[in-house]
């Protein structure tokens, strides 16, 4: 596990600093106010005049002390702060998208399995596959076009197309968790909360639409396999209604693999929301990472990839434990 983290950091580090780029690598650690002497001191302090592999050691030392440098393209704040201030928004988006994926994807998969090879199955599969085949940015813009622009011009109530909260309401609620919806609820400010929800609908739906097909597919395959099992025949021979057979007997067995997948998905959504955040101007970390790439901010990218990898690893563990709850045969 730690090996993976190391490996990632090594790879990004090498990519970032091992090749000539438009930006001097030490711009990371200097603020605008420093003069030439201070800059030289920084260069030596962080080992920029040493060979590459030694630089890595210096970098490691810096990071362990909490110094990720400064992101001059983002108001010159320390990189760590820039990341931390935006991270909760990405978390909110991811949670909203995951909820949508589960709420839409699982029933879709179950429907497909129950009505196997009938029309509803084909339609459900088509919907799922279409979602899976849609370019994220395209879908995002279409949603914006329809729900924001056309609704607006047609005088219908419209959904906002950018940001996490309306500018007029921003900052009116103390930021305890950093997630606008939660903060709004905690502060008891319904106006704020509803506004935050309205803002998150379109991006979350975009993000979830492309993934729920995959979940539906796994649920379907799992359900189909379960429905062929002997204990389902047994349950039916008891005279139980089909609804009970499916809900009580089949689901518990079928949802195991689906759960595993959702956990991993949620974790990867955290990373992959780059395009969605970009299109919706969502103030999250993915959007920033795009700019970081263009600005050559390797520290930011390192932070981003390491955090994402860490979350995926944690998600794996959580999912394994959750699996033990569903299936009593698995022991820890």
């Amino acid at each position, binding site marked *: 596990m730690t090996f993976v983290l190391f490996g990632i950091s090594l790879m990004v580090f090498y990519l970032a600093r091992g090749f000539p780029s438009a930006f001097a690598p030490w711009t990371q650690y200097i603020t605008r106010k420093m003069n030439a002497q201070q800059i030289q001191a920084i260069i030596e302090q962080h080992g920029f005049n040493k060979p590459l592999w030694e630089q890595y050691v210096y970098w490691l030392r810096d990071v362990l002390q909490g110094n990720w440098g400064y992101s001059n393209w983002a108001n010159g704040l320390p990189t760590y702060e820039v990341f931390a201030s935006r991270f909760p928004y990405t978390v909110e988006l991811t949670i909203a998208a995951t909820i949508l994926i589960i709420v839409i994807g699982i029933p879709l998969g179950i429907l497909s399995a129950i009505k196997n090879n009938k029309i509803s199955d084909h339609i459900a599969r088509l919907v799922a596959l279409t979602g899976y085949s849609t370019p994220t940015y395209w879908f995002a813009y279409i949603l914006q076009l329809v729900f924001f622009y056309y609704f607006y011009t047609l005088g219908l109530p419209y959904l906002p197309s950018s940001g996490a909260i309306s500018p007029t309401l921003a900052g009116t609620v103390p930021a305890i968790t950093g997630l606008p919806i939660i903060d709004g609820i905690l502060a008891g400010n319904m106006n704020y909360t509803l506004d935050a929800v309205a803002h998150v609908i379109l991006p979350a739906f975009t993000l979830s639409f492309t993934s729920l097909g995959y979940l539906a597919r796994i649920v379907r395959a799992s359900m189909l396999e379960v429905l062929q099992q002997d204990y389902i*025949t047994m349950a039916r021979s008891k005279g139980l209604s089909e609804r009970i057979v499916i809900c*009580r007997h089949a689901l518990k067995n079928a949802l195991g693999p689906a759960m595993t997948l959702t956990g991993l998905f949620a974790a990867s959504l955290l990373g992959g929301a780059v395009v969605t955040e970009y299109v919706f101007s969502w103030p999250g970390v993915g959007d920033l990472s795009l700019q970081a790439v263009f600005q050559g901010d390797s520290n930011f990218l390192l932070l981003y990839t390491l955090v994402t990898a860490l979350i995926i690893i944690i998600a794996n563990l959580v999912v394994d434990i959750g699996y033990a709850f569903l*299936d009593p045969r698995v022991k820890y």
Partner: protein
Amino acid sequence: MKNLSVNFQTYRGEVKALQNMDLEIFSHEVLALVGESGCGKSVTALTILSLLPPNGHVTEGEILLNGTDLLKKTHDEMRYVRSSEIATIFQDPMTYLNPVLTIATQLKESFLVRTDFPLSLNQTIEEFLATKRSSETAKVHRRKREDIAEQLSVDLLKLVRLSDPERVMKQYPFELSGGMRQRCMIAMALARRPSLLIADEITTALDVTIQAQVLSLLMSLRDTIDASTLLITHDLSIAAETADRIAVMYAGNIVEVASTKELFRNPLHPYTRLLMKCIPDVRKPKARLESIQGNVPDLIDPPNGCRFSPRCPKVMNECRAEKPTLKNYGKDHLVHCFLYKR
């Protein structure tokens, strides 16, 4: 069962699994359905329950239970039948029990599936099983029904000779041994108080000592429950021990039906005779093991006429051309064979 035919659609063709089967079970009797693997015994059970897989179809015939044809019933009516008239015990208790639900859940639902339910716990389990239909069908509160079901379940587990039933209730199927699981399955079947109990090869997956225990359990329960039993097995010796009448089946046809004593005293059909010869005699340990030559026919393209004709030592020309019809040989001994033309 009258003139029942069942076909299966498969990729390679149509499998004529059951062909014009006639079978009758009388109340309170144990009828054994004996035949080798693949001859269609389990298909018979599934057809009675209307639980055939999607590619199976009944092409003709009827199944009468107390006068009404089961094949003509709607899905919901059939569900009612399964919940209170017919109960099945299946072959492999490991795969037929849901691995993620406790025994308690699976047993209680067998009780709760019926709407007529005793109001209180003022009956012993034997009395409960004996009364097929409860007269008190008032609306009982759901929580109370679950409690009653819980208590009845524990009693029922005691009845099927499981020690420490409270503990078993909380366990999952994989935590029990094979014999214990099979007893739970029996309990689940009994809980529905059926008029017909179908036992589909219930001992096949168990080792011999457990087999004996389970069979003796069934026999002892015969008096407690008020039902007929269709015992499906490939083992003639089990049939001999437990059944009142035996029906011999081959390749989707019934070939002979008689009371147990009569069948063993006077087996008529060539197949039955060969089967009896195959049972090794414990008194002659050094004798050669007999077998029936030839192979079970391919049911996609079965032989015309009598399906046993390719392997029959007494085959005649008419056997290959036409199907033999039922002949009553007296003393309620039925045979499908041209040898006995009366």
